[in-house]
């Protein structure tokens, strides 16, 4: 019922936003950002937004772009794909932004990307890793690696580093990101001679996973791959340990939130997940960023903050090189980004508009997330 009402409200809002047009000041460049500031995956949106804001402040402090100030309009999509589309429509039609930053979740980027493509406005996703996102069209980019790489890295890691012979998969069936990652893990793990002993699923929002976990317990896997988001991962880990499953759980960058450890507690110790960056990475660019971030927000940035920062950096770099904010020219400039020195590593945009980057595997140990190993593409 609530969903139906919010759809109605969304429809009304989008009607209104087409009619109302606001003139942007001549001395500023307006970019849009849509993020999950509230809702089920709120830490994703809040972190990436913190990264974007930090980057924009720095760019403006250094004199702005093309002699103009950079202004970012932020829209909250409440962690819902249907709201993401509405938010981006508002950014495009009402705020007349020259480029769009967002989203972290692939489902939400996928909902919004066709609108940017249609409007001819470049969109850069900081952290959506599902391959389908940039396949929407030539105006859609990302500054993170994609799931085939992430999934196969974790499969390799399970087989080589953990010497796992068998794996179970527990995927979020309603989530494009989770389903994609599970498939890539499955392919690579089988390809390496490992055996997928069971492949079960849940749906976002579930709080009881004991039925699936009992099935997994019955087939005694060496590892369990849980490519979900942090909201469910903590509970899954807890219930797995309660049922006596003691093998490591593995996951992807969807685990990257302080909530994973908060909800999971001791249950997530000894688990591994792949990520875009590690806070204890000795790379000076990263350490400098962490310092600046701490000074402003007094907390250690997670990967979503780093990618929000890098996405803004890549966009600003392209605006500078293009010398204009014209959609077509800006798009072309983003497309030829090469070796941009981001916090999450050197970013080069390839022909599929994806970033070619290294990946890190992190281990949760004693309630802390620690760097474990780095894998180059």
């Amino acid at each position, binding site marked *: 019922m609530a969903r139906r009402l919010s759809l109605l409200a969304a429809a009304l809002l989008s009607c209104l936003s087409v009619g109302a047009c606001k003139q942007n000041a001549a001395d500023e460049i307006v970019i849009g950002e849509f993020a999950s500031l*509230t809702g089920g995956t709120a830490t994703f949106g809040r972190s990436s937004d913190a990264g974007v804001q930090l980057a924009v402040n720095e760019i403006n402090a250094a004199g702005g772009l093309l002699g103009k100030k950079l202004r970012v309009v932020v829209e909250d999509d409440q962690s819902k794909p249907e709201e993401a589309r509405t938010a981006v429509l508002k950014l495009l039609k009402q705020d007349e932004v020259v480029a769009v930053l967002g989203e972290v979740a692939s489902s939400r980027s996928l909902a919004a990307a066709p609108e940017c493509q249609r409007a001819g406005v470049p969109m850069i996703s900081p952290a959506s890793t599902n391959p389908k996102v940039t396949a929407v069209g030539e105006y859609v980019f990302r500054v993170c690696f994609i799931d085939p790489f992430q999934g196969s890295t974790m499969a390799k890691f399970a087989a080589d580093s953990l010497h796992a012979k068998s794996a179970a998969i527990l995927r979020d069936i309603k989530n494009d990101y989770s389903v994609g990652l599970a498939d890539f893990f499955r392919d690579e793990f089988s390809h390496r001679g490992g055996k997928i002993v069971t492949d079960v699923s849940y749906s976002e929002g579930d*709080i*009881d996973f004991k*039925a699936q976990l009992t099935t997994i317990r019955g087939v005694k896997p060496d590892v369990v791959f849980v490519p979900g988001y942090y909201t469910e991962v*903590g509970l899954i880990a807890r219930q797995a340990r309660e049922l006596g499953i003691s093998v490591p759980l593995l996951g992807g960058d969807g685990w990257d939130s302080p909530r994973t450890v908060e909800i999971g507690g001791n249950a997530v110790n000894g688990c591994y997940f792949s990520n875009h960056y590690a806070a204890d990475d000795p790379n000076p660019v990263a350490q400098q960023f962490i310092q600046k971030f701490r000074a402003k927000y007094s907390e250690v940035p997670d990967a979503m903050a780093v990618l929000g920062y890098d996405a803004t950096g890549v966009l600003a770099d392209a605006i500078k090189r293009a010398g204009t904010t014209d959609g077509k020219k800006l798009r072309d400039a983003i497309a030829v980004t090469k070796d941009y020195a981001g916090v999450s590593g050197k970013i080069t945009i390839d022909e599929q508009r994806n970033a070619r980057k290294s990946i890190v595997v992190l281990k949760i140990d004693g309630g802390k997330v620690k760097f474990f190993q780095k894998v180059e593409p």
Partner: protein
Amino acid sequence: MNDLLQQIVNGIAWGSLYALIALGYTMVYGVLRLINFAHGDVYMIGAMVAYYAARALLAPGTSSAGAFFALLVLSMVSCGALGFLIERLAYRPLRGAPKLTALITAIGVSLLLENGGQLVFGPDPKFFPQLLETRELSPGSGIVVTNVQLLVLCVSLTLMVGLQFLVFRTRVGAALRAVSYSAEAASLMGIDVDRVISLAFVLGSMLAGAAGVLVGLSNPKIEPLMGIMPGLKAFVAAVVGGIGNIPGAMAGGILMGLSEVLVVGYISSTYRDAIAFVILIVVLLVRPSGLFGASLQEKV
């Protein structure tokens, strides 16, 4: 075999939560013939009250049975008060109005609580404090039963028996039954109908509050929209058991939990939410008044 037994344990533990919520539905329906759609959201408020109380009053990391029972009582009392207010402000003014009006008001109250909850508590999920340390009660048997699961079941059963006693063995219960039978005749006999209806709401909401705390304890992630799906399924459970019937609601809830867990464990999680409604349809086809319901002639 072990797996099947484990799934049955999981199902009963999960179902006893539905049962608690279903008891509240049945309570209100039995007296007022009103489906209180806001009931699932009262359950959410119950969890939130306990969450904030624990954060405000307890040192972080506290785990004691005393603290748990204190929060359980606090949450039940708060939800009882909320139930009283809902009845007083939303439903009582519509007492003489057609049934449909009250039903739509119930949906309105539900939306108010859900969206108000998102405003007040914030829409992101919260982690419910671990008031009791989870311990396994059956080490070595291959079937895990935790103290929390057992507690949830015991609280549900106790509340059900208490409710049954109250309704069939006390004067208040007699008044409840009298109003349920005929509000008009009851008022002619000197029963204060408004008070009895308030009482039904208070009792029902208290049960929802208890369910909220118990779910926080066993599945410690709570958020403002957490009441929608369990509310719906508990309603189905109450109907399947024969709405208005107390042991029926309990049985319906357990049946709902068991079938859900078995479907997820042996078929696919995709059908998790569908199974509740399949059971509803099948039961209503075979026994239109529910498993435990006496067939009654409704005056239309």
